[in-house]
């Protein structure tokens, strides 16, 4: 009754199988792995800025997980929406970038070439640009430097 797992040592990770209370609206989880998320991170920050800020301000009020469920659902829906749009508009560029990240320890500076094609595609199709907050003014942002010192050894 109290636990869905026997008291003896178990070989599999414990999972609470109790479903979400029925009064909470359902939302599909994002279900995207780390590399595509890292590839989409800056566009996510640009596209879902209002929802993200709203959610984080709400979390600032209270850390209670039940406090910001509504805002959290909006955040997840917005992220799912962006990933769908990216896949509709820039599927090939998106995939080549995140596969490059997957191969290169998820380092941005080793995947500038596919990143630039993705950035230009995202700007053309969706009007989203990658901006890094806080980078020094008057200098080229690091993702646009043509001949950086830190780059892959192989051409």
């Amino acid at each position, binding site marked *: 009754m109290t636990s869905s797992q026997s008291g003896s040592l178990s070989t599999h990770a414990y999972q609470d199988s109790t479903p979400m209370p029925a009064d909470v609206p359902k939302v599909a989880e994002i279900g995207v792995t780390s590399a595509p998320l890292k590839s989409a991170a800056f566009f996510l920050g640009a596209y879902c800025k209002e*929802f993200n800020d709203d959610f984080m301000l709400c979390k600032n009020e209270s850390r209670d997980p039940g406090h*910001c469920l509504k805002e959290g659902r909006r955040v997840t829906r917005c992220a799912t929406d962006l990933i769908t749009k990216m896949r509709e508009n820039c599927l090939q560029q998106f995939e080549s970038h995140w596969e490059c990240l997957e191969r290169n320890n998820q380092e941005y500076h080793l995947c500038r070439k596919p990143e630039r094609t993705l950035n230009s595609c995202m700007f053309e199709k969706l009007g989203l640009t990658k901006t890094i907050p806080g980078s020094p003014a008057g200098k080229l942002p690091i993702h646009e430097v043509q001949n950086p*010192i830190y780059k892959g050894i192989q051409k």
Partner: protein
Amino acid sequence: MPPTGGFESLKYKRNLPYKGPGAYVLLGGVTAICAYGFYRLGKGNLERRELQREKVWSRIHLVPLFLAEGDRDMYRRQQAAIAREKEIMKDVPGWEAGKSVYNSSKYRSPEIVIL
């Protein structure tokens, strides 16, 4: 008697063949190479700082998404734990399931996790 044509001239001059560039050239060269190296190092440090900023911001942008997903799971398990507590303590009059042990409305993550 001396040989005809006289004696061969004596080799008394120092014979020091050329052994590469001089000290000042070497010193200058080493200084120049080091200066260029330090210049590249400084550039690289600035660049690494920017790469770090890029990495950090890519994670900051993802924080709300992960936090929202984690919150939903946490909320679900919390509700399950409260339901279990209610079931166990149903015979104890005046028991409030899920009540904090502290006299404060501030949220605290649960100290007991049932496996």
